[in-house]
């Protein structure tokens, strides 16, 4: 069972690392969006400190969503996905492996680059730490929920725009509590616990149901 997980994970990571631009585009998209906001809203320190957590989270949301289209598209086009559907191993496990690979390639880089964004917005060291932690727990949820949307819109015309319409409303709780944690850490560092608990519970729920829902969606899209 776990061999198939590792196998798919390894394959997806290898494929992505052979075409590094895809991974880097997402990362640079994030950096550009985050850097554009101060130019638009002004560069006062106070404004930036208030806006920072929200902007970083919205940028992470958009970056993760833009990358979602690629999650199944290539495998769908060359027919690999159909073979995965036919395989003896449970499809949800395959999907989970693909989601994990997707997160390692899009979510994790965002977590690692977040301190840079935090410094752009004059956040304190503690806030940056909280932001990294919140992103670390929150971005997997984004990938997991997004996979359902990506599977549903597979091969549909105008899929990208449609995907955002379907998925962004479901991202809202993560956005609220993710940026909420950073926001509250500016006032009281010890009060961030409940936010992390909620984010972690989102992660657990998504981890349980999202692979099942996305494999069901894939079966619908491919029949």
């Amino acid at each position, binding site marked *: 069972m776990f061999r198939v997980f590792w196998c798919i994970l390894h394959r997806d990571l290898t494929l992505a690392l052979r075409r590094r631009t895809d991974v880097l585009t997402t990362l640079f998209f994030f950096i550009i969006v985050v850097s554009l906001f101060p130019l638009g809203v002004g560069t006062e320190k106070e404004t930036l400190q208030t806006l920072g957590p929200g902007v970083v989270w919205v940028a992470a949301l958009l970056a993760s969503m833009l990358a979602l289209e690629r999650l199944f598209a290539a495998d769908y086009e060359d027919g690999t996905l159909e073979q995965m559907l036919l395989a003896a191993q449970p499809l949800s496990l395959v999907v989970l492996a693909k989601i994990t690979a997707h997160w390692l390639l899009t979510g994790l880089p965002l977590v690692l680059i977040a301190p840079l964004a935090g410094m752009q917005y004059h956040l304190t060291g503690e806030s940056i730490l909280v932001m990294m932690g919140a992103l670390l727990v929150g971005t997997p949820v984004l990938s997991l929920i997004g996979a359902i949307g990506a599977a549903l819109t597979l091969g549909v015309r105008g*899929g990208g725009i449609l995907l955002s*319409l379907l998925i962004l409303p*479901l991202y*809202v709780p993560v956005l609220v509590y993710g940026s909420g944690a950073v926001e509250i850490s500016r006032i009281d560092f010890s009060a961030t616990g409940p936010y992390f608990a909620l984010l972690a519970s989102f992660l657990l729920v998504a981890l349980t149901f999202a692979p099942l829902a996305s494999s069901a*969606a894939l079966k619908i899209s491919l029949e």
Partner: protein
Amino acid sequence: MALNWFRFAAPSAFYPLAGRAIPIFWWLTVIPLVIGLVWGFFMTPDQLGGTNAQKEYYRIIFIHVPTAWMSMWLYVVMAGWAAVGLVFKTRLSFMMANAIAPTGAVFTFLALWTGAFWGRPSWGTYWDWDPRLTAELILFFLYIGYIALHSAIDDTRRADRAAALLAIVGLVMVPVIFWSVNCPDPNQCAALHQRSDLTRMEGNILFSMLTITFAFWMYSFATTLMRLRSLILERESAAGASWVETTLGKEGAS
């Protein structure tokens, strides 16, 4: 006698039944609506509350609360039919879910719209990023997403099933909306929206509100069934079912 539970699952059997039911539902809409509105305008107090009085404009409640309730309820019903469709693979269930979606979206929009006009005099703002308002807005997006996904996929079968799955996934948001206002400790969550408590309401107001809720519920039945009938005709004739022509021929003759 063995009951055939699936008899009316056939679109051809349900079409005439729906046709007979629609006028009944329209009467059940119009009569309570008139009663509720008249009662709401003339039998209720002009002013409510003590220190921060709600004047005549509190009557928005007669539209606002029923539409908000219906917006959530219809989403649950829609997801329910979607689930039935996925489980039993009945075409009619998907059509039902499909027919409910626009009515639900309209109710959601109305709840937001009337809420804005109520918020202006009582809170001094059309919109506030309060948990319940935001959650209702998300519900509106969920309806739009369902309709958009369904119309983006050309293959009806796939569109039905994909949109059904989306509706079920979106169902997680409904409890969030429902309880977003009644959080255990009011000091913990900054909510402008009043907590809902039916037992503390004045009897006449409660009566009109519930009557109009009933009217709106029946209205949902009526519009859904009307839309369902068009959907049945559209899809069945596209699939080349012969009963469509004969039924339409009979209706045209009579």
